[in-house]
């Protein structure tokens, strides 16, 4: 039941697809259209003495994460995982996604974002782009994407990136927090997600391969160059402009916070596959779930966490970004995020339990 009062009405309306939520969506879509397709914001940027509209956008984005982050830290102050994670996300945004690139630019270095990697940051694998940079950046691009990303994914799951580092996830988990429950939990949404996210990953890998081939064969095949160029422009328009910006961020008030991450992000798809073979999992405390459904309701990836919790099933879902909100909102402390290692004394003890005392499992 909604609390009485105008402010409560507004908060509810904004967070439950009411009139104001549609209005906010329209404003956000308008903003992104202005940003991507016009130069109006350039004037605004110059007016407040910023060099470009992209710097202005970066500044606004960082503000959203910092202010939202402060709200989230207050809201989940009883949960250390949320406090630590949110602090890191805010730090990464301010330092790696805003300050350092601008400092680099000031030092006449490439404007490099260390917190974004291929396949999310597609440009860092475009040969014509990356090979112009000094060697350390080239090394970071390749070693980061090909070694650091999967390796950390094996040890900590997808969350090290999607919930601790990435700016897209950062915005979702800070400013987007009041809207996280809007993610669709329907099985149709789940089916769409599986197809869509892996399709984008496939396209991304295909395009990258094509770019390297085109770069390798040089100017000998102008038709190939043209095709690659068109493919790249199309990918840039659909994936980067439409899906990351307009669909991904502007539709928060209607479709929840992780539309991009869940359905389209190639990095999330790749890390999801790694996660399935890694150590991360969500452990379910046996027979303690009261099926209240808060975990499912507040899962921004649309995972029906309750179905696992109420059937006593530990699980690792490829889409899970490890934000830990399911565990945070659980009123009976049923869920715990873990990087399972064999030496964990709790793990060993649990194995012993199931050997000694086969508890009547209520599995439905």
């Amino acid at each position: 039941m909604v609390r009485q009062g105008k402010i409560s009405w507004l908060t509810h309306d904004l967070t439950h697809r009411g009139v104001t939520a549609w209005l906010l969506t329209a404003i956000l879509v308008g903003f992104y259209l202005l940003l991507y397709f016009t130069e109006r914001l350039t004037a605004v940027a110059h007016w407040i003495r910023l060099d470009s509209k992209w710097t202005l956008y970066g500044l606004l984005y960082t503000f959203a994460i910092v202010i939202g982050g402060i709200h989230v830290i207050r809201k989940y102050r009883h949960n250390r995982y949320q406090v630590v994670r949110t602090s890191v996300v805010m730090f990464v945004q301010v330092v790696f996604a805003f300050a350092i690139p601008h400092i680099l630019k000031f030092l006449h270095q490439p404007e490099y974002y260390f917190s974004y990697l291929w396949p999310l940051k597609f440009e860092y694998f475009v040969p014509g782009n990356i090979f112009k940079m000094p060697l350390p950046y080239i090394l970071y691009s390749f070693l980061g994407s090909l070694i650091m990303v999967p390796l950390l994914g094996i040890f900590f799951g997808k969350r090290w990136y999607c919930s601790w580092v990435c700016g897209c996830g950062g915005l979702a988990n800070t400013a987007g927090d009041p809207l996280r429950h809007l993610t669709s939990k329907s099985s149709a949404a789940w089916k769409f997600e599986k197809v869509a996210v892996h399709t984008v990953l496939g396209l991304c890998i295909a395009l990258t391969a094509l770019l390297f081939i085109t770069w390798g064969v040089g100017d000998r095949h102008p038709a190939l160059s043209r095709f690659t160029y068109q493919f790249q422009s199309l990918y840039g328009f659909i994936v980067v402009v439409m899906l990351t910006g307009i669909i991904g961020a502007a539709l928060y008030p209607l479709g929840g916070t992780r539309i991009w991450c869940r359905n389209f992000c190639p990095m999330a798809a790749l890390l999801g596959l790694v996660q399935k073979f890694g150590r991360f999992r969500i452990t379910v405390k046996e027979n303690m779930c009261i099926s209240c459904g808060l975990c499912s309701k507040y899962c921004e990836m649309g995972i029906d966490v309750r179905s696992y919790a109420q059937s006593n099933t530990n699980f690792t879902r490829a889409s899970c970004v490890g934000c830990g909100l399911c565990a945070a909102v659980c009123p009976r402390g049923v869920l715990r995020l873990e990087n399972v290692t064999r030496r964990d004394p709790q793990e060993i003890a649990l194995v012993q339990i199931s050997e000694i005392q086969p508890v009547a499992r209520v599995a439905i």
Partner: protein
Amino acid sequence: MHFVIIGNGVAGTTAALTLRQREPKAGITMISGESDYFFSRTALMYAYMDRMSLHDLEPFERKVFPKQNIRLVRDWVTDLDASSRTLRLKSGHSLAYDRLLLAVGSLANLPAWPGLDKAREGVVHFVTLQDLEKCERLTNSTREAVVVGGGLIGVELVECLVFHGKKVTFLVRSPWYWPAALAREESEIVTEHIRRHGVDVRGGEEVSEVLVGDSSRVRGIRTKSGAEFPCQMLGISIGVGPAVEWLRQVTTPPHMQRGIIISPSFATSLENVWAAGDCAEFERDGKPTVEQIWYTAKRQGELAARAMLGDGINYKPPIFYNSAMFFEIEYTTAGMAIDVPAGAESFFCRIPGKEASIRVIAHHGAVMGFNMLGARWNHTFFERWIAERRTMDYVLEHLAEAQFDVEFGRLDLAAVAPSYREWKQQEAQAAAAR
């Protein structure tokens, strides 16, 4: 074969799904007068606090029931005739069964306070969907609320009313909050926490009269100490009891005391009729017991279904455990932590600087109960240590294994070991003095 289940709560629904797993062809009908679909009763408070919609409270997608071919009937059962294996429904229809499960749950207990019968408006409980609707209807015309009864439902209702900005008085008859589950030390931590949310918690207060104002709406209550508390909403949560009154009037009532008496295989005194969940009365340690707990109902629902299918079920209540949340304080208990036998030793440690504590109880050298506040614990470890009759020394040495807190948030147990040594010395001195 036609299985009929009265009640679509956690016991009934678990039973229905278990029956379906084993009997792909049998007819299964589940009857409820309360709701169209199974919902999580323990989550009613989240609907009241705008954190979830009623639909969100349903643990299964609605299409599960047609898919599993479980027929849902929204009606109240008015008569049970075991000789002809027939139910009569309020709508006038009758329904034949081959095997029947009574999973009718429980209802709020009603006190006999003077004036309560005159209050036509403003008195609420917090157990059923209808209770929630009534609470919601009264909320916006309420400034002050009184909640009577020191249990879990009471504190949940208090939390909801605080969310809605009401001035709440929480009256507890016993000297401290929830003596059935918490010792005085734990209760003090909880009470202080509830008070910090702006609730006026009064221990040792008993209602002597319900005051009724214009248009028969509650306007306050008077207590035995003579104090008056104005309120436009009076929440009564003095416990729940099996919802079996209607069964006393049917053609063939099953044998009942407080609840429907069941054998260790969930059979009632009637042929082809079983019972499970809140409404079932069984024996725990030789004592007749009704247990109105989600976990018990879920387990019993599954086992009763298996008994109905002919499995040899010999239900022995497992080691008791439960969990709860008082505003932000989490609570886990296992074994016997209250009403312990004479001679039991109880080690209690308040974690300094935290709203957290641990209590371990042992008898004849073996641990028998745990009461933990303010942190997350895996109760399966407690159950195992109790079953293995571990010593207090062993348990305190291994306590960290049972911790289930979030990453980076593990409760610091550094203060426990010194506190335990000190406690042991005191116990030894006390023993020497005797």
